[in-house]
């Protein structure tokens, strides 16, 4: 069976075809970063307007690359939330219309659960997928969340951010340093040229074994550094690289430490890390070193499946559909807030 997955909860419109083994046959993402870059941030209304224009070509491209037509699709999966309501509704309304016109059933899925399960996607010979249970760390622009995952629909929240998400901290610090949007890649690149020991930003661990995150204070810490260097006329490119490296080190240290605490607390030895921030090279390196040392099996999807994509939506939709769970109808609504699930 082929499942068509559609994701439109934030910046990107994405569609993908996955077969029932979890093999990705196509994954198309219409990155809107160029548009957003012009405005220094995501423009929500602009995003949803773009989604209307891009959804049909993106879906057509996904079907074409998979070598199938809409009549070959056995089920569809679509993000119900969390995210921006206007953007979610574009994908959801599209799927409802296709479902009605072609009598194809659909499943509404939680975007964050889909991120955590993206480690099950296969697209090559050396696919290594986890077994349940595992701890998942989802780190993106909108979310920072640790969960214990015991099944495709069995998630136990262990901790999340109290204020800013990790990816948001990257975006906002990039803005403070005059770098582009989104901020993840420019900070990652600049940090490679800087000294991570330049400033020791406080690691907001809150207290030992606490699994909540807080990144708001770190942003303020960077602001204070930038201000005082500006006053001294010393905010050079070298200083910016050092700040980027020091900031990144603080975020990465906290993420790695809390992931290990979560594994310890749940007596689990498998860790999945996903979401856009999982593309960060320093985070990947430090996670690898820490999990190797502790004998933990680490699963980080390929970068294409870490950031928002349709394949993870298709995969979760496929598994829920097989269990007869979350089957959609005309009454299926968008759920923009995560606590509505």
């Amino acid at each position, binding site marked *: 069976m082929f499942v068509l997955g559609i994701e439109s909860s*934030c910046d990107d419109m994405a569609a993908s075809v996955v077969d029932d083994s979890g093999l990705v046959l196509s994954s198309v993402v219409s990155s809107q970063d160029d548009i957003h870059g012009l*405005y*220094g*941030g*995501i*423009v*929500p*209304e*602009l995003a949803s307007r773009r989604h209307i224009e891009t959804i049909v070509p993106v879906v057509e491209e996904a079907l074409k690359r998979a070598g199938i037509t809409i009549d070959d699709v056995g089920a569809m999966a679509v993000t119900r939330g*969390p*995210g*921006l309501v*206007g953007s979610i509704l574009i994908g959801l309304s599209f799927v409802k219309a296709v479902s009605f016109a072609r009598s194809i059933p659909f499943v509404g899925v939680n975007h964050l659960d889909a991120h955590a399960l993206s480690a099950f996607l296969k697209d090559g010979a050396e696919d290594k997928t986890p077994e349940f249970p595992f701890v998942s760390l989802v780190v993106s*622009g*909108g979310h920072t969340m640790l969960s214990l995952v015991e099944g495709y629909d069995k998630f136990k929240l262990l901790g999340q*951010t*109290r*204020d*800013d*998400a990790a990816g*948001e901290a990257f975006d*906002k610090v990039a*803005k*403070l340093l005059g770098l582009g949007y989104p901020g993840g890649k420019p900070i990652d690149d600049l940090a490679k040229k800087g000294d991570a020991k330049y400033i020791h930003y406080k690691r907001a661990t809150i207290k030992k074994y606490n699994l909540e995150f807080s990144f*708001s*204070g770190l*942003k*303020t*810490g*960077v*602001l*204070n550094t930038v*201000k*005082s260097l500006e006053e001294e006329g010393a905010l050079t490119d070298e200083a910016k690289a050092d700040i980027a490296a020091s900031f990144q080190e603080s975020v990465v240290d906290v993420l790695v430490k809390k992931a290990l605490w979560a594994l310890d607390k749940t007596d689990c030895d498998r860790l999945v890390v996903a979401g856009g921030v999982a593309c960060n090279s320093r985070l990947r390196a430090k996670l690898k070193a820490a999990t190797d040392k502790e004998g933990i099996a680490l699963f980080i999807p390929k970068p294409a499946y870490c950031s928002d994509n349709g394949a993870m939506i298709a995969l979760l939709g496929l598994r829920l559909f097989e269990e007869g769970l979350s089957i959609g109808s005309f009454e299926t609504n968008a759920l*923009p*807030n995560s606590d509505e699930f």
Partner: protein
Amino acid sequence: MAKKILKSNSSEETEQIGRDIASTLRGGDVVTLSGELGAGKTTLTQGIARELGIEGYVKSPSYTLINVYESGRLPLYHIDLYRIEGMVDLETLGLEEYIYGNGVSVIEWAERIETAGPGGSADYLPDNIIKVTISHEGDDRRRIEVLREDSDERI
């Protein structure tokens, strides 16, 4: 018109100022927060939420645009227009329902409204605004100006 200038030396003091502001708030009031990234806008909102009797954390609405809290003595609509910059048809966001509703609206980056596209102007907001401007005075020190331009003297 009423105006107050306050000083804060820490995020704890900024949160307390939020509590003090909230103690005078009534349903329908709109608080706008201006100040650069890291100034303490979310921290001040955290104080407002506490004083309204809302438990739990006030998370940044930068990515969600709005977070709604209904467990306190008044509903709190925490709006963040950070990502709204130019070309945005504000009327399609549906924020008026909240801003002109029965709860307290706290709007971060409200200055974006005036530079937004269709529907964007100073008239978008009601008159009963409490304008809070946070400015950086080195390290953790902040100057917090609270201004009310209508005839209501509560701040």
